């Protein structure tokens, strides 16, 4: 009968000959194989000294971006929270006061913005949902911690600081955005 996958193999179950039943030829050929491997290139990456580059599509810790003038992009529309399949994002919106134009780009902003990193599955749907290019997933790794509470990241840890901007150009040119 023709097999569906075309990968069927007929296995031989014939009785072993005397030489084969001593296992010696098989043992010797096996040892030759392992011996050759002694001289092969090691595949180990010695981690702290040597680090593998992340893939450009890597989705790690989130960042809330500011624009060129240092204003927060986020307008607290809540689309990211709606898109989030793990329901990891919560936020409280507030209205921009007069005199805060240099802080927030839009008239409405997020007073609090929290991502629970233990709930987050790093799918990147928040990033795709965002109409203001405010949230991005970066190639940074969420650090370990002892307390569950410490995994709830507020704005203090999510918004990029003025003197230390997070580069997301790679991220902006991958996937759907790259084809635009």
């Amino acid at each position: 009968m023709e097999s569906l996958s075309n990968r069927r193999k007929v296995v031989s179950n014939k009785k072993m000959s005397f030489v084969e039943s001593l296992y010696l030829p098989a043992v010797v050929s096996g040892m030759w194989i392992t011996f050759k491997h002694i001289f092969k290139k090691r595949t180990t990456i010695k981690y702290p000294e040597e680090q593998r580059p992340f893939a450009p599509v890597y989705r790690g810790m989130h960042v809330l971006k500011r624009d060129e003038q240092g204003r927060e992009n986020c307008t607290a529309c809540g689309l990211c929270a709606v898109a989030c399949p793990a329901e990891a994002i919560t936020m409280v919106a507030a209205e921009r006061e007069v005199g805060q134009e240099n802080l927030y780009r839009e008239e409405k902003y997020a007073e609090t913005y929290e991502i629970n990193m233990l709930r987050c599955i790093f799918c990147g749907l928040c990033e795709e949902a965002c109409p203001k290019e405010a949230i991005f997933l970066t190639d940074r790794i969420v650090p370990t911690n002892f307390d569950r509470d410490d995994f709830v990241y507020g704005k203090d840890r999510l918004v990029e600081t003025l003197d230390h901007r997070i580069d997301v150009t790679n991220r902006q040119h991958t996937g759907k955005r790259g084809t635009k």
Partner: protein
Amino acid sequence: MDTGLLLEKTILVLIVFAVTLFAAAYQTYMERKVAAWMQDRVGPDRAGPFGILQPIADAGKLFFKEDFIPANADKWLFIMGPGIAMFTAAITGAVIPWGPPLEIMGRTVSLQIADINIGVLFVMGIASIGVYGIMIGGWASNNKFSLFSAIRASSQMISYELAMGVSVITVVLMSGSLSLNEIVAQQHGMNWNVWYQPLCFLVFFICSVAECNRAPFDMAECESELIGGYHTEYGSMKMGFYLFAEYVNLFVSSAIIAALFFGGYNFPGMDNFSGNTLAIIGTLVFLFKILFFIFVFMWIRWTLPRFRYDQLMHLGWKKLIPISLINLVISALVIAFSYGWFNSKPANAVKSSEVEDVAVVSVAQQDNSFKTNFNN
């Protein structure tokens, strides 16, 4: 008793013991390195340069772990198990001739702790006692996996000891002596027993892999099936003793293989040296041979998967024992027909450099004819 003799033996005992333990410690490092290389990895390289302090770190870790004895275990036997394993492993080194005699201050110092005339029997006997360490440890743990492992280990060791014994008899037949010193001395230069008895060597080698409880015969440990076997319940340095004993066994087995079949401290061109130079080079050559066999043991371990239990018994009883018996009978017949049935000088005796007989020449001719006969 002669004080000088006492002193020299004490020093030798201490040196051999220290070297054995050192070798055992660094075999753990070597094992991990060899395993890593064969699997395209790097292996331990964090403790010290190239990770050479790894064994010390491991031992330190084991010492600081909790020394735990399970509630239902037989306390004294539980402690005795690793003790016996370690003791039997270390004591075998006493009869191995580590090198040609040294000359120190006019004394001839033999580099063998005890030249007993039944050295080979002693080794076999101690190897049989070695199984008690595993059996007692496995039984005293009061754990069914440990017990299973102990049963497997003892049946395996008993089965493979038979073929091992028969192949040792073949070597004894060749050299006409049970003393390891005599057997080694007769393999002068390149006149190694392995050239005359390759099949016997193979059987002996396979059996010593089984006796050392190493893969592919590590039925007693079976990490994946018996969760460590007889040392499941052990922790801390008692566990360390079992692991250590295994590596001491490996070292000693390699030494015995090298002594019985690969000429011990003998090497080609050894006639160009004499006295202390010969003794030192000979000892180094012997250690190199031991190192080589340790590597082969490891090589096999990281190549082959574990035998199934029935395959193990099948190989032991139905293959190795008949082969070694047939080999024994053929060797006996050849020796008998080349030397006469009741010749007091057996086959290899004439090879010995120590034989200072006028009849050496005539017997040596016989010796040559024996070799040609045997090769045919």
